[in-house]
Structures are given as C-alpha cells and as structure tokens.
C-alpha cells in the first residue's frame, strides 16, 4: 500500500465520521430541546400554570414557556428530523451509486 492509497482511505474514513456526526446531530437536536424544557420546568416550576394557586385563564394554559419548549422539541423530532434523516440517506445512496458508476 503506498502513501496515496493511505491518504485516500484516511479521507474516506473522515468523510464517514463527519456523516455519522451529522446524523447524530440531527437526531439529537429535538431531544436536547425537550430536555432543556424539562430542566427549565424543574428549575422554575412557577412557570407552569398547573402548579400556581393564582387565578388562571385559557391563555395562561396555552402560554407555559417550559411546555412550549418541550412542544417545539417534539415538533422538530417528529415532523422535521425524520425527513432530513431520510434525505441524508438518499443523498448518501445517490453518492454511492455515482461512485460505483465512476469506478
């Protein structure tokens, strides 16, 4: 094995690592946001209407910041991330096919 083949292998390995990191990052964004909302709710429970004794209206129930953060995390995890991951896999497969055709 000469030095050129070694470099090519190293480059291919780096590319795979970067792709894996991207998959993990997209998968983690939603859960991390949900975790942030949960931690916030624990740190400042008075931000949740259910735990307050004061008079409450409909708007108070609809505007609870930690729960809104959790909701955003859920929306990203369930509606945005799956499509992005699917498209990443498709582009990866297309690239592989192109590489196969080229070689």
């Amino acid at each position, binding site marked *: 094995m000469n030095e050129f083949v070694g470099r090519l292998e190293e480059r291919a390995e780096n590319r795979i690592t970067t792709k894996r990191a991207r998959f993990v990052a*997209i998968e983690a964004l939603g859960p991390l946001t949900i975790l942030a909302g949960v931690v916030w709710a624990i740190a400042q429970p008075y931000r949740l209407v259910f735990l307050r004794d004061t008079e409450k209206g409909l708007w108070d129930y609809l*505007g609870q910041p930690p729960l809104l953060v959790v909701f*955003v995390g859920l929306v990203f995890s369930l509606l945005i991330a799956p499509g*992005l991951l699917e498209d990443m896999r498709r582009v990866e497969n297309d690239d592989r096919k192109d590489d196969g055709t080229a070689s």
Partner: protein
Amino acid sequence: MEPRPEIAHWWFASIFLLLGLILLAEVIVGPTVFGRRPWRRYLWPATALASGVLLWLVAALSTFSMLHLIAHSIWAQAAMIAGAVELAVVRGLLRRPAWSLVTAGMLAVSGASFLVHEQNGWLFSRSAFLHHAIGWVLVAAALFPIGKAIRPRLAIWSTGFAVTVIVVAVLLYTDRDVAPIFGHLSEFAGESK
C-alpha cells in the same frame, strides 16, 4: 379577552425557536440535502414575510404611542422587504450573493426599532432590558448576512444567523409583563407580577 403581551411573546419565541432549529439543521445537513424538499427552502423567507404582515397588525391594533407606531411600522416594512427578496432568491429570480445585504438591512432596522422605542435604561425592568438586549443582538447579527454577501461559501454566516434566531427565542422566553432584572426594578415600572 386578549392574551397578555408576555404570552404573545412566548408564542413568538416558540416560532423563533423552531425556525432556529431548522436553520441550524440546514447548516448541519448542508444546502443539497436541505433543498431536496422545496417547503424547507421557502420556510425562512415565508416566515419573514408573514412576520412583516403580523407586525402591521400589531402596528395597527396594539400601538400605545406614536413612537411605537413608527417603530412597529418600519420593522414590519423591513421584514416584508427582506422576506420578498429572500423568496426571489430561493425562486432563482435573484442570484447575486449581494442580495443578502437586504437581510442585513432588515436585521439592523429591526434592532434599531427595538432600541429606539425603549426609552428607559437597561435595568429599568426586565422588559426594558430585553428591548436593549434583543436590539443589540439583531444589530450585531446584521454582520452575518453581510459576511454571506462577501464570502457566500463560509458556513459560519449561516451558523451565526441560526444561533441568533435561537438566542432571540431564549430572550423572548424570559419576558414578563413587569418583573425585575438582576434584582433591579424601577419604582416607576409598576408592581411585579
């Protein structure tokens, strides 16, 4: 009964947070993957345009003074212009990277609107602090589209823009109608709620 301003701000914060996450995801996956579904490409321009329309409603229906009216109107106009230009860029009607300067102008004008219509100091109340903080964050964030106009291929500009949107969301989440900031609350601000 109308929702309190702080509740409206928290809803806006949620929209900003989701938009920020999606913009961050665009940086992570790259423009090729992100552009495979057209609705994703149109999301940011459409949000800017829609927020401009909503801000006109705010200017018309919820304005407390002439200064607020002018600030909200300028802000609404800037958001609509930036949204329209970004839509044209996504459609391929405008191709030069220099069009990012319109977004830079929108951010600078929006930041200035925040700063101009807050007449109290930083530690007057939490609301005053947030006006100053969001204003300066937006003014500083104008550097990212300027950078994109000069060096369009560098990912740092898109990353900075996405992080800015998330930072604005966090600042909006901390809003309260009347509340102290770092232990300070002016006696003229009213009673803490």
